[in-house]
């Protein structure tokens, strides 16, 4: 087996890819494959038809039963074609007896209904293994692709039926509607020529499917062997050997590798199969024991070559990586490398303490400038970003401050204590005597509110009317204060809004009471 002449791409394939490869091979070598199956089966079909011409089912059943033998010729042809070896019809005819004879009985009896027939047949046809060697080989093969092979058999069985029924259906479609045909009798004939027609259609369906079926199983087998025996690796080594042929040492190694891998033949069982076979057969075989010294020698040479300079070329790589500090500084007390370099830099530049201070000073000034700039920028950004919230906060703070401290102005007049005269009653009397009733009473009312806010701790807002201020004072429960405030408020409201000038006695009474309430209270 010369792998360099293999006609398919040698690589690892999945089961589906392998089946696909089988169909491609069937198409590529269709004629020899089809004829190698058709001619023997046709002879058999004809013979059985002649012998059992009253029973049409015998012929088709006989062909179906002999399928394990009929499938061998296509596999044989494909095995040759795979390595670009053309098989002539004469060669094929000559090989047929040997092919059919090998393991004939088991395949026609207990193995006849094997669902993985297409996958297992190459072991019989190409490797010619029998008995326990074959079983061990199948165990090895069936670890992969066995399910795919079973599925392939199921699909092909249905395909044969579909083709048969499809052909019957097609024939029915060709019959004009005017002709009454019992379609059921066509599909399930009971008697007459339709039985033979259906038998013949079934035979051709089997003949049509057989190349695809056998090639798909063969491709699965091929894929499994590539996987097990590393054919793809061997081909790579061959290419490597061709390249290294000029170098004696490498050439020798390549030659050794080729010998190591290319020992077994495609048509021979692989090494491990041979070993198993040797164990089973005893000293008769002895191929493994004869090859052992050779393997030892090859192995030794391989190891020597692998230990040589060709496989130990030093390569220099550069890059950053962390130092192993513990390994470099076992004591752990050494100064860090950067500090040593920094000190060395200072020494080289003749930097004294003053120069160092000046250098640090310049850096600090730059840093200070950057920090102040950053702070200013941040402040400006925050002011702009949260300006609405800050305005609301300022308003609330002002309102709270207003609540906490009496307002300076209420109802227009200034109610701050310092804005009022020291002797309010005297000033009010003076204004009253001058005829300025409104200013006089306004001053008295303003002074009263001021006293209430600053001494009595009453809280008045700008929105409070005189009546509401009076209500607040009434809530305190101080009778004298309430009475005085009420009388003053009524007088003031009558003057301010009703333009009713109060009596002098009433004003004098209020002034007298004001002195009693506020001046003496101070």
């Amino acid at each position, binding site marked *: 087996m010369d792998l360099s002449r293999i006609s398919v791409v040698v690589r690892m394939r999945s089961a589906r890819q392998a089946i696909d490869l089988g169909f491609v091979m069937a198409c590529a070598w269709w004629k020899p494959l089809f004829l190698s199956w058709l001619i023997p089966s046709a002879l058999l079909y004809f013979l059985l038809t002649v012998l059992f011409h009253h029973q049409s089912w015998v012929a088709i059943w006989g062909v179906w039963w002999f399928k394990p033998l009929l499938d061998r010729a296509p596999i044989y042809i494909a095995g040759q074609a795979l390595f670009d070896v053309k098989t002539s019809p004469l060669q094929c005819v000559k090989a047929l007896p040997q092919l059919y004879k090998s393991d004939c009985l088991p395949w026609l009896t207990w193995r006849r209904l094997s669902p993985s027939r297409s996958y297992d047949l190459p072991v019989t046809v190409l490797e010619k293994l029998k008995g326990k060697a074959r079983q061990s080989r199948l165990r090895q093969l069936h670890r992969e692709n066995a399910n795919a092979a079973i599925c392939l058999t199921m699909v092909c069985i249905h395909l044969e039926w579909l083709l048969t029924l499809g052909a019957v259906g097609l024939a029915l479609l060709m019959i004009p509607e005017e002709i009454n045909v019992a379609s059921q009798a066509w599909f399930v004939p009971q008697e007459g020529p339709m039985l033979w027609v259906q038998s013949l259609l079934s035979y051709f369906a089997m003949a049509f499917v057989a190349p695809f079926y056998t090639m798909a199983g063969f491709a699965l087998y091929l894929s499994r062997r590539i996987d097990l025996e590393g054919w793809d690796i061997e081909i790579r080594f061959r290419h490597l050997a061709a390249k290294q042929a000029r170098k004696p040492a490498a050439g020798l190694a390549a030659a050794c590798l080729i010998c190591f891998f290319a020992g077994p033949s495609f048509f021979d069982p692989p090494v491990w199969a041979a070993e198993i076979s040797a164990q089973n057969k005893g000293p008769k075989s002895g191929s493994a024991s004869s090859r052992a010294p050779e393997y030892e020698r090859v192995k030794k040479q391989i190891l020597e070559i692998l230990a040589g300079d060709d496989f130990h070329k030093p390569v220099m790589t550069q890059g950053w990586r962390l130092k192993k500090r513990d390994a470099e500084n076992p004591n752990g007390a050494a100064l860090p490398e950067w500090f040593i370099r920094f000190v060395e830099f200072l020494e080289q530049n003749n930097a004294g303490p003053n120069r160092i201070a000046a250098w640090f000073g310049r850096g600090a000034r730059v840093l200070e400038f950057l920090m102040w700039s950053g702070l200013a920028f941040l402040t400006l950004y925050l002011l702009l970003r949260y300006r609405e919230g800050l305005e609301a906060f300022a308003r609330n703070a002002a309102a709270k401050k207003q609540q906490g401290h009496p307002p300076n102005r209420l*109802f227009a007049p200034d109610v701050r204590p310092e804005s009022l005269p020291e002797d309010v009653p005297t000033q009010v009397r003076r204004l009253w005597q001058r005829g300025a009733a409104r200013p006089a009473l306004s001053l008295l009312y303003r002074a009263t509110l001021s006293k209430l806010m600053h001494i009595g701790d009453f809280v008045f807002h700008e929105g409070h009317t005189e009546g509401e201020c009076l209500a607040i004072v009434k809530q305190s429960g101080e009778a004298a204060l309430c009475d005085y405030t009420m009388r003053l408020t009524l007088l003031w409201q009558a003057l301010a809004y009703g333009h009713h000038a109060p009596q002098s006695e009433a004003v004098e009474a209020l002034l007298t009471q004001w002195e009693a309430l506020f001046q003496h209270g101070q």
Partner: protein
Amino acid sequence: MSEEETHMTFEAARQCLLQLKKRLNAELLGQEAVVDQVLIALLSNGHVLIEGVPGLGKTLLVRTLAECFQGAFKRIQFTPDLMPADITGHVLYDMKAAQFRMRKGPVFTNLLLADEINRSPAKTQAALLEVMQEKQVTLEGRAAAIPSPFMVLATQNPIEQEGTYPLPEAELDRFLMKIFMDYPNHADEVALTQKITTGHADDLEAFSHNGAIISAAQISALQGLAADIAVDAQVFDYAVRLVRATRDSAAIQRGAGPRACIGLIRCARAQALLHGSDFVLPDDVKNMALPVMRHRIALSPEMEIDGLNADQVLGPLFSAVEAPRA
């Protein structure tokens, strides 16, 4: 109409109003504020929209008020199928007299109770627009005057929303005040229950029918007297600032119009008269601000979503308006 009726002294007016208040409060227990506001609207020659749950005595208030003076009282129960002609009246052809004859509607009265006004569609509600503002009804191109005094007291239920038609802004603006009628307190409710259920099989029998204590002419005289109540310039300014504050607030989508200023001063004058004062205080204006303006504004969607009503928005707003500076 006697001279005494058309020209009433301030003291006589005060006494008359006191009697009126006493009579109304005797019949309608626990609703002093509502009685005051209805009287203020009457003195201001305005109309009121009363909002309250059923059974608080809205109809009783209007009926008693009508009985208090020698005037006519009509009631319209607003229903979805009520037509404008059912309110204003219509002109029909009299076959016997061979001429057109005007059939006056219930609006031709002194006191009109428009019960559950929001149960009628907008076209029926609009029939009141002319009569409320112009005090006249135009039928077949001829304007018919309404007797004076004329006052519309409309009621609506704040709970039911299904099958009701909200009053349009133009209609709302014609009401001088919107009055909220709340439940009476415990003591008043006990007295009310005792009064109605003791010795009377029918609820209406429990209310006294003591006859009129004031004439329609006296009402007009009181209205004239209220219009003469002195108002200082600062109070005018304060009233306008209160109204304008509703237009500057972000919480209010549509503020009150100039009619609110007019109504506010009229109500403040009436309240001063009701309190026996011959001048208006800023307190009178501030007290009347809510009932005069609560139905004339539209809250912003944010406030609506937050579930705030007009009073909750207007209260803080009015508190922030600076009181008059003497």
